[in-house]
């Protein structure tokens, strides 16, 4: 059975019209989307294969708006689906048809920049890149850098615990968030953390970050700013085999060098990128590494020399150092346009598994085997420093049944990642896409412990209700839990 075929929407028989009436009492007319064409803009996210028309979309402009909407959702027991820019690749922002979609894109103000404190307070809908842009002139930046950073929102990043190429050095969202303001499922406003390190008591921030909109609606965030490095440049290394490239990454890290990014591309990816971006990548290699270092010119040069020395044991057949900004941009251009380049060739399903680096060549050859058994082509692009694989499985979306087949193929790949000691998602999250695969990685008890946290924050299970946890398990859990609490209270 495919991943999505289990999508069982629990459409409540009649959603009271009074929900709309109540919403229009607390929001302005232009904050409520009800017309078919308007709703269609919210029927999917970057997981475009699934579309569900929501019941209503609201566009809050303040935390108070969000709290007012949540109170209405609570009163009528109607689900809410928080939404930022809708770039989730896991279907995290895809609504259910009985849901109020709460889209925070209008809450896009930077509220405070505090350079003494190296932090910024921003509204939920501010884009990732806008934060860095706002402090760039002062020599600071916000570190997590998902490839979607131009459009994705900070709240979406918080919900998905997003990361990008540079997280090898700077960590992902959870390492860079100091505080959040949150509206609970019942419409209460809570704050966790603030412009200081390591909040008191239990680490609620660690729960909120990565909770995929299931614990509360984030309306504001305090993020950590970092001083910008003096410069950054990549070098490019081409190898005759995956093994050599993988071993080279392991050797670099094992020898004590921690570049700011290490990206890996296999041959099909290199070819597609080169045809599209003309970055000057070699076409006669099996694997390419892009390794970036930060610092002053001489520091980067010194790091390059060390890495080249280490790499020489693995017989790199292509070496290119970026000496100027232009050369650096050219090297990154290919990588950054990789997904688009492959998208021009074919539809693809982008997987997001993580593996221990030591298993890299084993996993890559297994992925090739799995895909060829399904007669799919696959192209691998990934963050090698932290083992976050992105196999792009190419398929023909116009053939009936192909999507189900490609899902199945993807599920096998993720199972392989877990078997190798890794996990089913490194940055895109679980969402709708991978909820049924959670059992690959977690035992029932593991998931029950997580669901108890959801129940604590969201007792009626109205926040993004059909995401993250396998539906059947969630159903059973909620039934057991409610009978238990009935029993305990009597």
């Amino acid at each position, binding site marked *: 059975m495919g991943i999505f075929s289990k999508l069982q929407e629990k459409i409540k028989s009649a959603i009271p019209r009074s929900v709309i009436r109540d919403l229009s009492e607390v929001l302005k007319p232009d904050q409520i989307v009800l017309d078919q064409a308007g709703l269609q803009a919210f029927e999917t996210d970057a997981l475009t294969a699934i579309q569900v028309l929501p019941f209503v979309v609201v566009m809050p402009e303040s935390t108070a708006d969000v709290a007012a909407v949540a109170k209405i959702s609570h009163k009528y027991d109607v689900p809410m689906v928080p939404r930022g820019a809708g770039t989730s690749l896991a279907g995290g922002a895809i609504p259910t048809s009985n849901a109020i979609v709460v889209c925070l894109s209008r809450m896009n103000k930077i509220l405070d920049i*505090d350079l003494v*404190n*190296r932090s910024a307070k921003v509204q939920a809908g501010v884009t990732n890149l806008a934060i860095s842009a706002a402090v760039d002139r002062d*020599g*600071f930046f916000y570190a997590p850098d998902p490839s979607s950073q131009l459009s994705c929102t900070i709240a979406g990043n918080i919900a998905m*615990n997003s*990361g990008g190429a540079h*997280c090898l050095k700077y*960590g992902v969202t*959870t*390492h860079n968030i100091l505080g959040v303001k949150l509206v609970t499922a019942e419409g209460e406003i*809570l704050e966790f953390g603030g*412009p*200081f*390190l*390591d*909040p008191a*008591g*239990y*680490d*609620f921030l*660690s*729960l909120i*970050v990565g909770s995929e909109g299931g614990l509360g609606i984030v309306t504001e965030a305090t993020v950590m700013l970092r*001083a910008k490095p003096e410069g950054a440049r990549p070098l490019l290394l081409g190898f005759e085999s995956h093994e050599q490239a993988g071993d080279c990454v392991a050797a670099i*890290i*094992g020898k*004590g*060098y921690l570049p700011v990014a290490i990206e890996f591309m296999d041959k099909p990816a290199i070819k597609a990128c080169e045809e599209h971006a003309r970055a000057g990548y070699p076409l006669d290699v099996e694997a390419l590494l892009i390794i970036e270092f930060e*610092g*002053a010119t*001489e*520091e980067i040069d*010194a790091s390059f020399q060390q890495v080249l020395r280490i790499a020489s044991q693995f017989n790199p057949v292509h070496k290119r150092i970026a000496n100027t900004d232009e050369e650096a941009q050219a090297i990154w251009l290919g990588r950054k346009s990789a997904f688009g380049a492959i998208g021009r060739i074919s539809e693809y399903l982008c997987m997001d598994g993580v593996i*221990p680096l*030591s298993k890299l060549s084993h996993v890559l050859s297994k992925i090739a085997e799995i895909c060829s058994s399904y007669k799919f082509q696959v192209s691998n692009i990934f*963050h090698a420093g*932290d*083992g*976050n694989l992105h196999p792009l499985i190419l398929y023909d979306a116009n053939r009936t049944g192909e999507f189900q087949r490609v899902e199945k193929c993807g599920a096998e790949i993720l199972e392989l990642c877990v078997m190798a000691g*890794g996990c089913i*998602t*490194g*940055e*895109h*999250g*679980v969402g709708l896409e*991978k909820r049924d695969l959670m059992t690959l*990685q*977690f035992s029932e*008890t*593991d998931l*029950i*412990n*997580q669901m*108890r*946290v959801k*129940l*604590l*924050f969201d007792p009626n299970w109205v926040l993004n209700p059909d995401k993250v946890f396998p539906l059947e398990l969630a159903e059973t859990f909620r039934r057991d839990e409610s009978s238990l609490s009935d029993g305990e209270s009597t």
Partner: protein
Amino acid sequence: MQDMLTPLVNRDLKDMILDAKDKGTSLEILGHGTKRMIGRYSEKNVPLTMRRFSEVTLYEPSELVISARAGTPIVEIERELKGYGQHLPFEHLDFSKLFETEPGYGTIGSLFATNFSGSRRLLKGSARDHLIGVKGINGRGESFSSGGRVMKNVAGYDLAKLMANSWGTLAVMTEVTIKLLPTPPSECTLFLYGLEEDIALEALRTAIATPYEVSGAVHLNKTHAFPCLEGVTYVQDKAVTAIRLENTPKSLAYRSEKIRELLSAFGELFYIDEPESKLFWQNMRQLAFLANRDDAIWRVSTSPQRAFQSARQIKKLVDSQVSYDWGGGLLWISTRGVADMGSSDIRRIIAQAGGHATLIYPGVDATQPVSPFHPLDPAHMQLTKGLKSMFDPAGVLNPGRMYDGV
């Protein structure tokens, strides 16, 4: 003292927890017990030590990851890492000098349960940030795991990091997996002497805002500075402002020169090389500066923006000495001669500034009981109790250690 329970394997631990749950008793979860002085202590709890859960279960230097059973001594892990030029980057605190316990004790589980990170936290993050996987048993006697051995993992809710700073009240960790970092090849420290606090904090801010990756930024008042400077070449009987850099020797030469130029207006900068630099930061990690056993000791996390003002207000009201770590974000306050250890004033002022204050050590003048952990507001307390009841409904694990009823 009651007999100590000493489980060896998960099965034992689970049985002990279930047994306590059935009998309606409770357990005090211990590693080596080095941090037993911190937080609240109840005679009623049966002590249970995790010290026999001791083994490194996985170490992959090329992936910067190590897993160990929770009772593994920290020193053993450090010894293992040293051979590969890697380290635990967050500089966990060592309380042995302060509490006059034997040095070299402390378990890896308690390190995360308490999440006390030292000076390098400023640049490299907290202990919590490096905790990527946990296996444990909750108060219901259920074994669970969260996270894993790969550093990027966003599957489900992050219960691993939730264990950090939970002081053994939610679950007993049985195994932890940690992200490591390469040990920097060399370090140096720049000292400024005798600066006024506000000027010193500005100097630290200026240094941190550079691209030179300052990995330690402290200002110690004259009294606190003295014990930390033991063995360091440039000892002076003055307050000291210290800025640490860690990198290759060549980079250090370049970066320290840049900082020196930038900070020259603040006064003469003294360059401290290894091994004195290392010694100074080790003294910091061991809280040598607080070694006066008469004083009560507070550890305060606050906004660097408000740190100086807050400290000034506190000093006006309480007989106290203040030093700063994390470029001003962490205040170490020692107080004397006050029955509540300065609690009411410190907590009120810090709450206004944003942040929280933990009582590390009560000193000799304490006569009033004080909550060691910063009191939570009602909404947070409700959630805290809720979380406790989800993980440990019968209150078996360290009940009351952090807060009443938790």
